[in-house]
């Protein structure tokens, strides 16, 4: 193996190593952890006391159709 070939292999390995290192670095920036940074811990002092269950209105997901009332209506027609 002559000196020139040796240098070629060395340069190729350096390039591949640099690409791998940068790939790993980018993955750490664009991963789930980066997109959803850890929220700071909430101290108990800042946490509002939950309202009693009977004071919180219940929100159903969807209001559905109703059974009709059978009557003779008196709307304006």
């Amino acid at each position, binding site marked *: 193996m002559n000196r020139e070939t040796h240098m070629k292999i060395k*340069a*190729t390995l350096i390039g591949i190593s640099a690409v791998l290192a940068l790939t790993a670095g980018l993955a750490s920036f664009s991963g789930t952890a980066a997109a959803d940074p850890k929220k700071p811990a909430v101290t108990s002092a800042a946490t509002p006391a939950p309202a009693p269950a009977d004071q919180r209105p219940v929100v*159903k997901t969807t*209001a559905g159709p*109703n059974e009709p009332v059978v009557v*003779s*209506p008196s*709307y304006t*027609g």
Partner: protein
Amino acid sequence: MRTNLLRTAAAATLAFLLTGCVGSASSTARPEPASSVSSKIASVKGSRITVYKSKEGVAQRTITSPNDYGATRVFLVERDEGKWLQVLLPIRPNGSKGWIKATDVTLAETAYRVEIDRGAFRFTVYDGDRAVRSGKVATGEAGTPTPPGRYFFTELVKPVDQGGAYGAYAFGLSGFSPVLKSFAGGPGQLAIHGTNKPSAIGTRASHGCVRISNDDITWMAKNLAIGTPVVVQG
């Protein structure tokens, strides 16, 4: 030669870096899906509810439940402030609002709303931003117009006389005729209902109510809840 190789490796690395950054930037800038338009409907828990003129203010009036048709009293929520809800009221004058305590009601949500274009004699039912049903309507005559405004369904009625003027079903509205203070023994309440005169649909023919085909009102009865918002415009 060595320099060339090093330059090639550096260029490849730079290209890879740029590609990654662009991809990362575009995924960050991707818009969130538009949230669907929904309304809150408040159903009265007890046999009556106190309505306030302002939050924690003086009681304005008491409204009973069920209503005169025997349906659970509902309100369309215009503003939700946690313990207090500002609601559209089914009283004169049209568009009246008041505040109720959230603890006095249960809340439900609907993505449906009904829009009525008087000028075009058309109704459209939206599910969020998507039109899911539309058709022709008859509106009030010149002397008894259908007033524009924001209303909600107060009850669903199946008329005893299925061949009568109200057709297959009628949804009472929270609004009233600006002209008729009483009608047929009632308080001049507006409604969207079917008809036994389908030929009049597409014209000004009613005393203020909105008439639609029996197929359309039957579809509404099977799909829409009382409390669903109705906007009359045009």
